[in-house]
């Protein structure tokens, strides 16, 4: 009963309807703006000092230590600019306890942000004490940790006849420069680029699967409630209709994704844009190709599911409430993919990049972060293809029964019965 001509007619309408719609144009343009906006806003929040006017007291038991702290603090611009107001004093434990009692009202009122106390024991174990109404002030610790560390190191090594270079070395923290090892290539220094790209891909997949899926579901509910479907089915079979709708939306989705990825493609194929070394992207056109194929298959699969939910219910509220199983299939892989950024080679990620449904979201994230053997990529595509075919057959059965049903909201048990119907 499948008719290619009719399917193509439906596809053409879907494309015309979607590509020219305001929603599509707006979404395609606004999403990148929105994403960069979020990124930019976050960076803005992180770089902007929101702790202007912080007032702290630094108290050390050891006079030398106090002097070292004072001098290393005074080198910093945020102290010089009076961004932070710091008072320094030397007190032993008993004096400090008294001092603390005295300062308690000021601490409680917030006039004094906090008191850092460095007892003599800190010269053995590098443990400082911090007293405040809000003792978990990570931003403050991040700012002063280095300086306190330097002061402690300098004081500790003061009488041990070490050269300033040696003391400086002792004060350094260990860091990691990351290199990616891949077949056939020399080890390359890796920036944050791929980490960001992996997050970007995961987010785009998550977002557009839900966005296009919900749109699909609404369209099916609309056809059903407005009874257009009855006219349509007097012209074509439910299979033509469903295939056409899914392919039409699928093509729209891939086109949209391609537009979103254009900046990435331009970065890796041309020299119009160059990224700072830290953000260097190690992405090939092959990966972009894989990403788009994977997305197309995943989109078709999920659109099939969303269309089915739309066909089961005859109003949007009911349909929304019937969406949760599909949402789980998108959200769980999404969170797994996010954790991939910590360790992309963990067993969980490896397995999740092959499991039907989750493969669609996890594999691209994994591929962006580590080298995945070609057979594994192929395997994932085959699995996704099989999932798609399975879902398509299943969805087709529910769809053709569902779209002509109206009235009472069916139970899941009833829906299962529909499989057996001869329609």
């Amino acid at each position, binding site marked *: *009963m499948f008719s290619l001509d009719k399917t193509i007619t439906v596809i053409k309408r879907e494309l015309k309807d979607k590509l020219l719609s305001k929603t599509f144009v707006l979404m395609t343009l606004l999403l990148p703006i929105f994403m960069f906006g979020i990124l930019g806003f976050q960076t803005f929040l992180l770089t902007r000092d929101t702790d202007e006017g912080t007032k702290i007291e630094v108290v050390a038991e050891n006079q030398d230590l106090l002097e070292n702290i004072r001098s290393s603090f005074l080198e910093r611009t945020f102290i010089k600019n009076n961004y932070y107001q710091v008072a320094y004093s030397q007190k032993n434990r008993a004096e400090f306890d008294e001092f603390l009692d005295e300062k308690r009202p000021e601490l409680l009122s917030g006039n004094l942000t906090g008191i850092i106390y460095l007892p003599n024991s800190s010269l053995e174990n590098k443990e400082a004490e911090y007293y405040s109404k809000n003792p978990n002030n990570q931003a403050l610790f991040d700012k002063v940790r280095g300086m306190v560390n330097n002061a402690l190191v300098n004081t500790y090594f003061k009488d041990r006849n070490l050269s300033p270079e040696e003391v400086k070395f002792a004060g350094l923290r260990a860091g990691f420069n990351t290199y990616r090892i891949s077949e056939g290539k020399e080890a390359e220094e890796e920036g944050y680029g791929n980490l960001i790209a992996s997050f970007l891909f995961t987010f785009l997949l998550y977002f557009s699967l839900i966005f296009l899926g919900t749109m699909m579901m609404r369209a099916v509910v*609309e056809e059903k*409630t*407005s009874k257009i479907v009855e*006219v349509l089915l*007097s012209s*074509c079979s439910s299979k033509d209709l469903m295939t056409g709708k899914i392919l039409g939306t699928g093509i729209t989705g891939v086109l949209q994704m391609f537009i979103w990825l254009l900046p990435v493609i331009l970065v890796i194929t041309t020299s119009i844009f160059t990224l700072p070394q830290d953000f260097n992207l190690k992405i090939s056109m092959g990966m972009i190709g894989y990403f788009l194929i994977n997305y197309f298959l995943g989109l078709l699969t999920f659109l099939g599911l969303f269309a089915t939910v739309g066909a089961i219910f005859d109003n949007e509220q009911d349909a929304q409430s019937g969406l949760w199983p599909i949402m789980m299939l998108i959200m769980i892989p999404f969170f797994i993919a996010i954790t991939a950024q910590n360790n992309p080679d963990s067993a969980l990620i490896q397995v999740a990049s092959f499991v039907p449904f989750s493969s669609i979201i996890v594999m691209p994230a994994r591929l962006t972060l580590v080298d995945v053997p070609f057979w594994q990529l192929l395997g994932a595509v085959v699995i996704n293809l099989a999932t798609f075919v399975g879902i398509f057959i299943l969805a087709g059965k529910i769809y053709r029964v569902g779209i002509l049903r109206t009235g009472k909201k069916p139970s899941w048990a009833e829906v299962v*019965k529909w499989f057996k119907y001869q329609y």
Partner: protein
Amino acid sequence: MNALEVKNLTKTFDKIIAVDDASFEVPEGSIFGLIGRNGAGKTTTIRMMMNIYIPDSGEVLLRGNKVDHLFKDKVGYLPEERGLYKKSKVMDILLYFAELKGKKGKGVQKKAEEYLERFELLDRKNSKIEDLSKGNQQKLQFISTILHDPEFIILDEPFSGLDPINTNLLKEIILDLKKQGKVIIFSTHLMDFAEKMCDHIAMIDHGKIILKGSLSEIKSKYAQENISLNYEGDISFLNSHPLVQKIEDFGNTTGIKITDASKTQELLKLLVDNNVNVKKFDANDITLHEIFISLAGKVEGEQLTAGVTNV
């Protein structure tokens, strides 16, 4: 010759028999009425005729051959509950529906404009559907039903919601289509309407065909044993008379069913003899409505338990 033959169609939904062994014939060039009240099984029958539903058993023959999906291109279907894509434009939707039926190109566009003109909608061809009045949307839907020049036109309650002017326009076009040799199938619960337009009918009740055939034959058959009477006086003596099978009050007229069609004159004499003032005594007229009540009313008593759901 029959254009369509429906043979022993049966369709069950969840143990509810929606259509039960229905058979009828739609002759070539006729206006055919599928008549029955809401939920009788009309829509399910039509859906099976158009291959939307697969029957549990039975078949539909198109000029002797089993219908297949190609039949869909030859049918124009106007469902009772109408709908169009609200955001689409008038011309776009006409061309889309025609293309789904396999018709596209300049010819269709020209024809669409002709129809729009005839329905006084040409100036709205680039409007969005949601900006049209309900009446205009119905006209548009009717155009989309016939634009692809179908051989068979299936109309489900086509006049509901139309004003008198458009009703006439639609009737005119339907008669036009009949002249062109199209087969027109109505599904309706309005007996008066079916009586005026159809030349063949099938009556369906609780999924069963209870009456079928040419309307004039059916009427003359039932008219002979059904007398419609307007009178003054008392006719209660007829209640137990051996000549009378049944008396029914239809409001303006009283219908009397007699046991022997050849004895109408005896009944008239009986009335006159009993001093009943006979205003009208018609042994040659019966409405479809009366036939339906006399058939379906009876059937209902027997089958009250077998509810039929319209799916």
